């Protein structure tokens, strides 16, 4: 709560300071300056400069073509190809660029003419026939561009372009022959489901946008691309459906992304952390998904997707708490089952949040609230346990978190060792030795299982942290403390927004129309309208008749 206060006040002061000194230096040395450095028409000079700027990096490949046969003069070439080894597809470069240039019969004579011209006029010729001939007749590549400054040059070079420079020409040509190693489309690892598409996003931005294009075949699926990260120059794309998405959200989002001035974006969580409305909350206010079908359905709701190159996790804004309880499979199976699972998820979130603290509160303060038989069972288990209940719960929660972290971080070959040590040694022998009571182990285990039910991992993280806060409250104040902290959490959550949309919508502010997709998942033929405040511009989503099923006529 103080966080928000602070962030509001601090925002203005800190904006100027945000850029790190090293990034500053780097940018000044590199991209900013390059903008005003035109490509030199003298090939040797140009290539020397590229080599110098890149510190003679060995993966920089410069291939010179001596088409006019001026043998003898070392390094004096007519055409030079510049690219980064491994970033391009060699076969395409060979076949559709080098081969065609080499085999063109008219090119040598044109090159000679050009050279004469340059020598005579001693100036650049803007209407340059060789360049346009290579561009229009020789390069058999779909995506090409003109390189005029060093900024263009380096940008395209690292995007996987092969650059063609001609002696005497003031600009070069970039041909997209992007290639190199990349992961193929696989089943997503984090969002498993039984029914539904098996494809997941990959690390490649282009593949990801294609996966979305394949889902939504509409000219209104718009995409805007920008580069974020002063050094990494990571491509970031935002996609939305024009006419559905809120223009002000798009504007706001673009501005926030442009304001990011850090060294590098290595994962979409960098973006997430930089553009969230509230910086000091344990709750995730931007959701990330690994499945194209989920992102597509969010786009159809009028939300905006942020795709970052180098990660399969795509962000969606604005996000509400409710979205963290929705799994794609809810829509792929029977709505009764989906509704049941929704309620199960909500309740297991509360179990994950509250169960240890309720246990501690009951054992420590409110023994009269449970049935006598249960009380006697618990009392019998507590017999001879050396620690008070709250300490016991703390220890076991901590042990569980350690176990969980250990299993996540260790090589998978050693995983079984951990589960034996963790499960048997800690789980069983600690109870048999009477160091902690088995009730606590049951509570912690059940809490752990419940916390895995959340379909989105980041929400589970919030519950994990708040659980400890609630434990402290329960061990000092009992149910009163739990109620206080829950009230604080509720206040905090109702203060949260995600790109202007209240985080708790449609619970608070209450919106009956949006309840169709919260605790309930009503049948699709009843979901006639897009979410309020998000897909408002075109409210009706489903125009099918109220009762689309008819008896077949005889």
């Amino acid at each position: 709560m103080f966080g928000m206060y602070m962030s509001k006040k601090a925002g203005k002061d800190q904006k100027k300071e945000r850029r790190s000194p090293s990034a500053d230096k780097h940018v000044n040395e590199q991209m900013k300056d390059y903008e005003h450095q035109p490509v030199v028409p003298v090939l040797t000079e140009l290539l020397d400069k590229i080599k110098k700027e890149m510190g003679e990096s060995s993966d920089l490949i410069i291939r010179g073509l001596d088409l006019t046969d001026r043998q003898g003069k070392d390094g004096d070439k007519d055409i030079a190809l510049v690219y980064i080894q491994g970033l391009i597809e060699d076969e395409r470069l060979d076949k559709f660029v080098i081969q065609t240039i080499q085999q063109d019969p008219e090119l040598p004579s044109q090159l000679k003419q050009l050279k004469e011209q340059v020598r005579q006029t001693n100036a650049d010729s803007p209407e340059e026939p060789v360049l346009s001939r290579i561009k229009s007749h020789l390069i058999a590549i779909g995506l090409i561009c003109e390189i005029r400054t060093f900024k263009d040059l380096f940008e395209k070079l690292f995007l996987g372009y092969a650059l063609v420079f001609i002696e005497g020409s003031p600009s070069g040509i970039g041909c997209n022959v992007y290639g190199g190693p990349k992961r193929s489309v696989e089943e997503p690892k984090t969002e498993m489901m039984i029914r539904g598409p098996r494809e997941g996003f990959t690390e490649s931005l282009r593949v990801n946008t294609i996966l979305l294009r394949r889902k939504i075949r509409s000219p209104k699926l718009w995409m805007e691309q920008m580069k974020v990260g002063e050094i990494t120059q990571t491509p970031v794309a935002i996609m939305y459906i024009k006419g559905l998405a809120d223009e002000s959200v798009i504007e706001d989002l673009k501005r926030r992304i442009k304001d990011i001035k850090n060294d590098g974006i290595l994962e979409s969580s960098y973006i997430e952390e930089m553009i969230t409305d509230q910086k000091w909350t344990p709750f995730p206010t931007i959701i990330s998904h690994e499945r194209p079908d989920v992102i597509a359905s969010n786009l159809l709701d009028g939300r905006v997707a942020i795709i970052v190159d180098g990660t399969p996790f795509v962000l969606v804004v604005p996000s509400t708490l409710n979205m963290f309880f929705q799994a794609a499979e809810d829509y792929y199976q029977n709505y009764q089952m989906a509704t049941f699972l929704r309620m199960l998820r909500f309740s297991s979130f509360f179990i994950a949040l509250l169960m240890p603290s309720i246990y501690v509160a009951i054992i420590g303060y409110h023994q009269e609230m449970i049935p006598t038989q249960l009380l006697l069972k618990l009392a019998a288990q507590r017999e001879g346990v050396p620690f008070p209940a709250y300490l016991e719960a703390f220890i076991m929660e901590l042990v569980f978190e350690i176990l969980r972290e250990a299993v996540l971080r260790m090589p998978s070959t050693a995983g079984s060792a951990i589960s034996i040590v963790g499960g048997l040694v800690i789980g069983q022998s600690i109870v048999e030795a009477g160091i902690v009571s088995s009730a606590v182990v049951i509570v912690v285990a059940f809490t752990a299982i419940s916390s895995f039910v959340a379909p989105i991992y980041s929400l589970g993280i919030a519950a994990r942290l708040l659980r400890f806060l609630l434990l402290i409250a329960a061990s000092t104040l009992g149910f009163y403390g739990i109620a206080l902290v829950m009230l604080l959490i509720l206040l905090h959550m109702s203060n949260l927004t995600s790109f202007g949309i209240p985080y708790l919508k449609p619970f608070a502010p209450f919106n009956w129309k949006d309840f169709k997709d919260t605790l309930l998942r009503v049948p699709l033929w009843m979901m006639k309208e897009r979410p309020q405040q998000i897909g408002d511009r075109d409210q009706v989503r489903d125009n099918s008749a109220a009762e689309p099923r008819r008896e077949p006529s005889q």
Partner: protein
Amino acid sequence: MKRRLPLWRKVWSGMAIRLIKRLALTVIIASVLIPLTGCWDIRYLDKLGVVIALGVDDDPSGKFRYELTVQVVLPQNATSRDGGGNGSPVMTLTEKGDTVFEAIRKMSAKTSRRLFFSHTQLLVIHESTAKKGIFPLMDLIDRNADIRTDISVVIARGVKAAKLLQIRTQMESVPANQIKETILVDQNAKGQLYSVLVRDITRISKSEGQQIAVPAVGVEGDPEAGSTKEIVDRINPKVLPELKTMAVFDGGRLIGYLPPKQSQGLTWSLNKLQNTVLKFPCANGKGHYIMEVIRTDTKVKAEKPKGESEWPTVKMEIRMQSSVHEVTCPGLSINDEQTLLALEEKLNAVVEKEIKSTVDWLMDRKLDALGWGEQIYRDQPARWKQMKARWKTIFPQIQYEIHCISHVESMGARTDAITE
């Protein structure tokens, strides 16, 4: 180049000061909230002695008013999975005092665990103590927020309350549960007794003229043999707590015990009866047949008297659904409506007679355990005002009508009797 400020200067800006002020304010508010309740209330579960039953006797030495016995559960023995465990599931502590609380506090000299009364199930009062009045015993239970008022109350008949609490039982490892559950089983299957809670007694004590009735418990066998381990190792127990009949009170003082039939009649008239069986002799005098009353509902109404000088008439309507369960009458075959109607009529007559005898028994002793005063107060409040002061003398003169409506639902899987 701009001079970079050191970190502490940045932090110590005006914004930070305001923030710290606000933080401090909140911390103060929060720390004010904590002592409002707080850890003083913490009770460690393993440091509690859960009192499951209270027993009240007269002090034999006569120095104090009561001798209080508490039955404390030893959880490790009471709940162990291998049946009973090694030690006794409960232990008792006895102490004397003029009030209940005085005796309880004296017990702290003998207990390593703080006595905890929130789960107390049973209050046993010895008959001689009950004769002196049971209302003083209820005050602590009703007043104290930590003690529940749904404690079942019983009168120890013919045995000291302390002894009753020291009998080990085989069915339930905690003896107090045995007594409490037995009352409920009896109420559901026979209806000779019904469960009476502390809150019922406190309610009735302030009601219009109603007298309390409390179930009585005695022992079968030698009560002295009850407390050792050998008793639970036997197949035929040497001693068992056994339910007697309802004990009736006058102004909170024990007067006497209803006979079994009348005890059931009381349960029936108060609509506490859920299920019972009745025995009937056969028409030809050989053998019996048994009818089970499956569902029954009793409605009592006080009707406006015709004349000014007359008292209201109490009308009791009993609806029953029953079934024939056991027939040892030779040749009795229930396959026509006439026989069924005859059975129904017989049942009505027997129930009417039983309840009539109950009312008469109570009227003889001028004890309104039926709650009729309360009923007249509700139905005829104006008339009650005139009667209230003299209710004890008026009650035996009250006119009443008992009307039974029964319906035989089934006669079991066969119609003819096996008996020849």
